[in-house]
């Protein structure tokens, strides 16, 4: 990277820390520090909702997915607008008018302290580990692609975010999220235009899309009912709907966003903003990956995008021979890609499809070679950063690295803030010291942010085998998400549900997901449906069999 790129990244980091810290003046009192006195406008909350969800690994991973697998991943988001509408009708008014700080506090009002503590505890464990991965994933990638020290990247990203989140509270989180979203959008737009500008003369964006479409990279709707297929319109509209309901409606890192809005109406508008913009935004991110694919029809991509792995085998004779076959396959594909993009004939299209298959087979041999030593090897997340560093002009590299940092920091800050809120209010205030002053609670909130920030950095440093760690965290999250949603369905919609039903229903739900994950082949997204349905059913039956005196506040709010 040139000094201009370094200056852009350094300037971005310095401004974010300064901008976050200057929010300290708005953080007097528990309401100010944790909920911004419920004073934020819908557009800021809406951008914060989107920024929290868009982590660096989503940005980098989705562009890589666009390159390798095309647009299919977009179907995952088709259920999001429906989830937002359901949450606008249910969760937003319920939480807002109950005047709670955390989603789990509502469960105590509806059930009892056991349910609140158990759900909050699950949130702390899964999100605490999750934020470590959110830091680790981009740090490892940036370290390899840019040659930075991994530990330095982890601590620069983790501790700078911890610093402004700790001092500025939720105000700092939201207003830095807003600016970070602008950095991300600006970076993505510049990137898109630069890639199209790098196509060979005579190849337009339309020609490029025809090339991508010919090899199935632009499939956006798959009607298959196969439950073992990951991305179909049904897994998006039904299974992902449950995931989004759970994530946006029961995860404190998202619930806290709309609780800071000025009113129920502004909270609803902020979620609907995300409903409108999420699919187009995800389309643009995947499109960048597809356009990188088109670019690499005319410029040779590395056989292995992870530079460390590439260097490891550079002197191996077998690897060199695979590399030579790969280069030959590329040259052949380049020739027919050029022919197809200029003639648009059916015969050229067929030749191009065949040449692409040969090229993919040649790359697969290289990947399989690396996999002999490292079975979980996958270089999908390296495609975009590698492309940026190798092919983008000076200045744009810095901008896109800043955008990757922005995506990471916007998620980390919201998650640390939510972890600190749950720790302070669900545990410290509820179970340890109910009579402290506002000043003391804010102090505990700051200390909790610092401790969670350090914990997340330490988890990130231990993420040497990142693939398996992500799997563990995702699995743990999926155990929890659907079942937690089930508890909230019991709270909102089942009048007869009581605390015994909610508490043991949750445990049954988690157990059912464990069974589904170990004894069936259904895809991860469907675990959320299983967990939710079992929790609701078990919770309802337990409530009927073991009735307790339970406070029904759902119809009073």
């Amino acid at each position: 990277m040139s000094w201009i790129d370094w200056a852009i990244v350094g300037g971005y980091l310095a401004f974010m820390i300064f901008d976050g810290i200057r929010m300290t003046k708005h953080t007097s009192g528990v309401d100010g520090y944790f909920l911004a006195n419920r004073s934020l406008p819908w557009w800021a909350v809406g951008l914060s909702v989107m920024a929290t969800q868009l982590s660096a690994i989503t940005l980098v991973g989705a562009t890589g997915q666009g390159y390798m697998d095309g647009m299919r991943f977009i179907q995952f988001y088709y259920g999001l607008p429906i989830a937002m509408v359901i949450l606008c009708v249910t969760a937003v008014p319920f939480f807002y008018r109950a005047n709670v700080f955390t989603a789990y506090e509502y469960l105590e009002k509806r059930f009892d302290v056991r349910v609140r503590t158990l759900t909050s505890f699950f949130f702390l464990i899964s999100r605490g580990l999750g934020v470590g991965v959110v830091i680790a994933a981009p740090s490892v990638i940036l370290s390899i692609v840019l040659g930075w020290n991994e530990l330095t990247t982890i601590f620069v990203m983790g501790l700078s975010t911890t610093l402004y989140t700790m001092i500025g509270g939720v105000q700092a989180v939201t207003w830095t999220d807003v600016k970070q979203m602008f950095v991300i959008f600006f970076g993505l737009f510049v990137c898109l235009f630069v890639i199209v500008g790098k196509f060979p003369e005579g190849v337009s964006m339309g020609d490029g899309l025809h090339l991508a479409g010919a090899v199935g990279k632009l499939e956006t709707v798959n009607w298959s009912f196969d439950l073992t297929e990951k991305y179909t319109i049904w897994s998006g509209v039904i299974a992902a709907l449950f995931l989004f309901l759970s994530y946006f409606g029961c995860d404190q890192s998202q619930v806290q966003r709309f609780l800071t809005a000025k009113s129920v109406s502004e909270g609803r508008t902020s979620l609907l903003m995300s409903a409108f913009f999420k699919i187009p935004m995800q389309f643009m991110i995947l499109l960048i990956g597809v356009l990188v694919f088109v670019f690499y029809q005319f410029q040779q991509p590395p056989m292995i995008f992870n530079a460390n792995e590439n260097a490891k085998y550079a002197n191996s004779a077998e690897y060199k021979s695979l590399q030579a076959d790969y280069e030959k396959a590329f040259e052949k594909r380049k020739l027919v890609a050029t022919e197809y993009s200029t003639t648009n004939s059916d015969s050229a299209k067929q030749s191009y499809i065949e040449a692409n298959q040969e090229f993919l087979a040649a790359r697969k041999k290289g990947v399989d070679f690396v996999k002999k030593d490292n079975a979980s090897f996958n270089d999908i997340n390296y495609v975009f950063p590698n492309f940026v560093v190798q092919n983008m002009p000076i200045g744009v590299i810095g901008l896109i690295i800043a955008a990757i940092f922005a995506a990471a920091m916007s998620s980390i800050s919201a998650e640390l803030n939510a972890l600190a809120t749950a720790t302070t209010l669900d545990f410290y205030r509820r179970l340890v010291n109910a009579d402290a002053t506002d000043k003391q609670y804010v102090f505990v909130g700051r200390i909790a942010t610092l401790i969670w920030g350090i914990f997340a950095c330490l988890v990130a440093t231990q993420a040497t085998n990142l693939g398996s760690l992500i799997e563990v965290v995702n699995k743990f999250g999926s155990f929890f998400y659907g079942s937690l949603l089930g508890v909230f369905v019991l709270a909102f919609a089942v009048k007869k549900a009581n605390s015994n039903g909610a508490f043991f229903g949750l445990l049954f739900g988690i157990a059912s997901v464990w069974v589904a994950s170990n004894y069936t082949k259904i895809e991860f997204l469907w675990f959320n449906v299983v967990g939710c349905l079992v929790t609701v059913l078990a919770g309802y039956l337990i409530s009927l069999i073991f009735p307790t005196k339970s406070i029904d506040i759902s119809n009073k709010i």
Partner: protein
Amino acid sequence: MDENEQKLPKKNEVPDSWWYRVYFGVIVSTILVIFALWAFSQYFK
């Protein structure tokens, strides 16, 4: 609800009937977006 749990004033709020029209609009626009994406993929197939 006790004193600490009193409802917040319904400031700047619009009637539910208006929101139902908005929700309907969101669902319709989502269907249109999915249709547009499907048409996009068919055009470049």
